[in-house]
């Protein structure tokens, strides 16, 4: 599938590790010019160094709409366009029930996972809609459609991402821009909380396939949604969860 994104410009947030890094590798390997954006510039640079082709890094805290706007503007300045955006930056919460979530934890998760996606959508769509083309993939989660215990802030934020995805898709349908979400099951990345990591066997067993996903498996679904193969797919949540939500 080399060349599937030849001539395209792809922006990936949270690309310094995990699913975002796998997406950046997937796009670069398929011919796209890639902007590797992360709050951790060193992590972004380390991923970027390993990629073939045209690559830029961007330091961005998606909680800040100004930084997000700058990231998108620089992408267009550097590579002349923005064709694909993966709004992936996200964090997990501290593993306590709703009535014990601290205000700080709630705000932090909401600001990154929910407000961050909103900021990215705004800046990206302001480029893509006038261009009449573009594909955005928001990284939601199985927790965007079901819940678990002790993940209230995360669940709410990811349900919010699914809602934003649908609303944005409706708003721009007919403009040539598509907006979709991918819903990974548990994936082996640095985002896994210590609690989850300590109980990895039972987390794996909650997936009917009996294992966690890999970042590359999620990137493959992102690649499909971003590609012309998905040209009629918009406003959709594609779950990549090893059967987690089928049970």
């Amino acid at each position, binding site marked *: 599938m080399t060349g599937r994104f030849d001539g395209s410009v792809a922006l990936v947030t949270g690309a310094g590790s995990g699913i975002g890094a796998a997406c950046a590798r997937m796009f670069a390997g398929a011919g796209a010019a890639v902007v590797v954006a992360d709050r951790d510039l060193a992590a972004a640079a380390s991923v970027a160094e390993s990629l073939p082709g045209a690559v830029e890094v961007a330091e961005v805290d998606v909680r800040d709409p100004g930084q997000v706007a700058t990231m998108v503007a620089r992408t267009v300045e550097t590579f002349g366009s923005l064709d694909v955006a993966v709004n992936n930056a996200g964090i997990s919460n501290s593993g306590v029930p709703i009535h014990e979530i601290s205000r700080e934890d709630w705000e932090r998760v909401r600001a990154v996972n929910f407000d961050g996606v909103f900021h990215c959508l705004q800046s990206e769509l302001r480029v893509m809609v006038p261009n009449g083309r573009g594909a955005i993939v928001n990284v939601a989660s199985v927790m965007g459609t079901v819940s678990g215990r002790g993940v209230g802030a995360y669940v709410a934020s990811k349900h919010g991402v699914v809602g934003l*995805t649908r609303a944005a898709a409706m708003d721009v349908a007919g403009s040539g821009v598509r907006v979709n979400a991918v819903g990974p099951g548990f994936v082996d990345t640095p985002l896994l909380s210590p609690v989850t990591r300590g109980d990895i066997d039972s987390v794996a067993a909650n997936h009917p396939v009996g294992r966690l996903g890999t970042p590359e498996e999620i990137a*493959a679904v992102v690649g499909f949604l971003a590609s012309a193969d*998905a040209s009629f797919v918009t406003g959709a949540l594609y779950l990549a969860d090893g059967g987690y939500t089928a049970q």
Partner: protein
Amino acid sequence: MSELSGVVVVTGAGGDIGRTTSALLAGRGAQVLAVDLAVDAAEATAGEIRAAGGAATAFAADVTDPDQVTAYARRAAELGPITGFFNNAGIEGRVAPLGQMTVESFDAVMAVNVRGVFLGLSALLPLMAPGSAVVNTASSGGLRGTAGMAAYVASKHAVIGLTKVAALEVAERGIRVNAVCPSAVEGRMMDSLDEQRSAVGLPATPEDRMGRRASPGDIARAVGFLLGPESEFVSGTTLSVDGARTAA
């Protein structure tokens, strides 16, 4: 694009989605067993694939008949290792509101769309190897309702249920089962529905928000994704190809 190998069985292979998807799968390297109730339609799909340099075999079968389903499964196994199954045969039935929908009409739709999908899964899953994948054709009607289409909507909701159970049952064998949910697709079925809806005074099916109906190719590309290795962690779920219809 990801290459396929082995035998992929396609039911309803003579219809618009089935024919286009069969051609796409064959173009990616699969050997297609093109199953259709109408032998001419199955032959036409297989012939088109062979003319393009691909491998395809036609097979006439009624998917509601257990013996005929066993027969197409056996034929597929004779051709080689079965790596994919596009369990796609379906009918729209007669448009009528509840109270006016006949039992015969209801049963006919359920027979093809639910019993046919069940029989196909029952016959083929035991023959499939680890790494293989199944796609059932559901519909945005499997997620939402449409007036005048009780049987169809119920049947497509049932397909999604069957998909989830099948996925759970074969997950440990490394087989994936998903459903694709198209909205209105250009072709014979929508022509029939447009005509029927107009005849009984129901509004036409709304256009999707992208300003057009889906093409058979839109659906074929999603099926190709679900049957290929790129969707390796995707199982037991529904993939909408509906131009934001179910985002509303």
